[in-house]
């Protein structure tokens, strides 16, 4: 197990190195000039050139890459071209909202989705099963921002129960914190619920068709334990897998949700940085996200051993 973990952690470094090269090249070879955006539309070419020189953007690509790489190896993600603030500080300021949104969405989605999936499998072929499947398709089909706007319209403007936008840190109080996350989590989580519910249903149906389930029923085990203790545990591996894959979707969806609900998270940070060609921010965030994604996959793989004792590394 330990050698498996070490091997995977080492591969994280390799993945991040490849990502670093790819993202650097993609950014610098794409059209766009941060110096021109900085100085504004009314500036002259001379002013743009002066700013470009001052920012080191007219150095050869290899020099710029080396400069950035040396910084990374020292733990320095660089400084925003626009605001001159350290990228690590900007990420640090934004990490709590993104993690909060991701965790609340994950918690909501997993609880609802697994419940619905188990229910649909238990009542397979009935109207309950069909309703769950239809709702899943709808949830997956409607874009996050449409759901977001609808939720804002109903719960914020019409009913006035929840805020339209913004984020309150948890130090401001749990109730305030969660109030700001309810609607975004619902909007972001619906597609996730759909994905997990469908996989849960399928995996549960497979498990429920096994001999050991027939044996359990024959021995008089109640429906609850049959579903939750015997079937669900054995269906856990594919469900965990899709939860892990879904985290990638979550990270992508977080960008739109953060924009619609004005949550100052990492998603917004990187979208703003892309439109302005703030290279250090884009590079820094992409690098970190790639590392996070590899580690999440590692944790998902390790969690299999908790569910299925037959799996050993």
């Amino acid at each position, binding site marked *: 197990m330990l050698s498996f973990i070490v091997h995977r952690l080492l591969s994280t470094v390799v993945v991040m190195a490849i990502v670093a090269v790819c993202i650097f090249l993609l950014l610098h070879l*794409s059209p766009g000039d941060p110096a*021109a955006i900085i100085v*504004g539309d009314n500036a002259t*070419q001379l002013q*743009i050139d002066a700013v470009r020189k001052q920012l080191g953007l007219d150095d050869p690509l290899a020099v710029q890459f080396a400069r950035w790489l040396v910084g990374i190896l020292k733990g320095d993600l660089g400084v925003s071209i626009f605001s001159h603030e350290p990228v690590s500080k900007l990420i640090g300021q934004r990490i709590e909202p993104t993690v909060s949104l991701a965790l609340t969405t994950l918690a909501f989605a997993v609880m609802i989705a697994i419940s619905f999936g188990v229910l649909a499998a238990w009542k397979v072929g009935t109207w309950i099963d069909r309703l769950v499947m239809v709702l899943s398709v709808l949830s997956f089909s409607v874009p996050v921002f449409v759901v977001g706007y609808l939720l804002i319209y109903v719960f914020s403007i019409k009913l*006035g129960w929840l805020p339209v*936008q913004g984020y309150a840190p948890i130090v401001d109080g749990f109730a305030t914190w969660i109030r700001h996350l309810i609607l975004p989590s619902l909007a972001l989580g619906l597609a996730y619920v759909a994905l997990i519910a469908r996989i849960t249903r399928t995996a549960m149906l497979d498990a429920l068709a096994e001999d050991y389930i027939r044996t359990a029923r024959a021995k008089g085990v109640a429906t609850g334990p049959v579903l939750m203790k015997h079937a669900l545990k054995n269906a856990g591996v594919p469900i965990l897998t899709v939860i892990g894959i879904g985290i990638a979707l979550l990270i992508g969806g977080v960008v739109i949700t953060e924009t*619609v609900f004005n949550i*100052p998270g990492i998603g917004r940070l990187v979208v703003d940085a892309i*439109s302005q060609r703030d290279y250090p921010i884009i590079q820094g965030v992409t690098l970190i996200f790639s590392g996070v994604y590899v580690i999440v996959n590692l944790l998902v793989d390790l969690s299999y051993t908790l569910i299925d004792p037959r799996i050993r590394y």
Partner: protein
Amino acid sequence: MATSRRTFVKGTAASAAAVSAPGLLMAQTTPSDARTVRAVLHADLKIFDPIWTTANITGDHSLLIYDTLFGLDDARNVQPQMVDKWSISDDKKTYTFTLRDGLKFHDGQAVTSSDVVASVRRWAARDGAAQHLFKRVADTPIKDDNTFAIVLKEPYGLVLEALAKIETNLPVIMRKKDAETDPNQQVTTKIGSGPFRFNEDETKSGQRYVYDKFTGYVPRKEPPSGMAGGKIAKIDRVIIENMADEQTAVAALKAGEIDFYEIPPIDLLDQLEGDKNIKLDVLNKGGNVGMCRLNWLHPPFDKVEARQAMLYLIKQEDILKAVFGNPKYYRSCASLFACTGQMQSDVNTDWFKGGQNIAKARELFTKAGYDGRPVVILQATNIAFMNNASLLVAQWLKEAGVNAELAASDWGAVVTRRAVKKPVAEGGWNIFITWGSGEGFDNPIGFVAHTANGEAGWFGWPKDDLHEKLRDDWALASTLEERKAVARKLQENAWNYVPMVLLGQWAPPVARRANVSGFIPLPAHVPFWNVEKT
């Protein structure tokens, strides 16, 4: 020893006081919601140095924390702001200024002539209008802490107008140590002498920018008028929120989570108009003017006939309707200096009065020797005006027999490609679309798009020696009437050689909560002095 009830109560009370103290203290120092205005402006504030960038959002930030020597009032007259009195020598070459008493920076330091001279010189290193002035400046001697002078090599009619400039780069006054920063490097401190001070602790980059009333500010006694008069902060705090989504910003305004929205989307104005808690006002009456920049360096627009063809090709009404919908907020305009300022006229605009004439455009393209090569339009798809205008211009060009091609990208890519001077086949361009403020258009010297000095000038690189001479004449004119006369000559000449083509003028409203009032109408910026919340 058993604790008595009295001791227990005393201890509990003391504990409660100790735990509540920070909260009470915070309640005392954080302005209440009733004294705080939350505003969503047109962009995120990323750059704080108004000399380093021409971005209007930085100009908005500057108006909060900095002050200027002079300001333009409602009637566009120059009025003193930080200056108490000034005099002009008989030979009109020496301007002597004395600062008002009591001016202080936010760190408590007094504003002195050294700060002023350093700030003006740094501004002059970057700003077009200032550069035009400073070509004629011999010296800026400091007489004492409150008195300084600008000594000219020759008389120049726009000294005070330049110092009262409202377009970016704003001539703000910084501390000397900040103003001595290389003009090509950004000043990152935010210490000014304006009516508000920047609250670095409460600000979160990309999310919100917080400004608190500066109690040490000494406003002028005159009533506020434009950029002049008393800049009295009637609220304790201004929070500029960064809200990227327009629909969310509208919802937040309706729910009372924000108080002011600078550019509400046009298609949602009806919704806002129907809400009794929201008011719409047009603060920036000059608005913006769209322009189609033509690349003079390569065919077909290196020929005057092809450029003249564009005058007959464009139907401003269609572009404006496509983008803005409601004619309340836009107008067609053929004046080179926009249709809301002092320099406007209808000289040499018969091409406009006759309306769109595709046949005439086709004839002129033929006369120009157009050979069917692709004419590339840089289409910024992420900006509605630029995107829609590009589509219409491309369509009209095709109707006129021109092989128009759209090069779609985001604005960031457009600003890169428009700097390319090579032919189209090597990555160049023929047309790009942008806009400038109505206020900017009204100033032949200050507005970079009015230059016609060829490759040393602004993108498109028009070149006309008469135009440049007339610009100098305009700057040297000593009365408004003289300047208007020169402006007419500028326009007469311009619509003969055609530096660019105009796409119409628009002035959309701002949206505010009904209990927030006092916004002063200004071109290009939103000031927060005089704003009240009831």
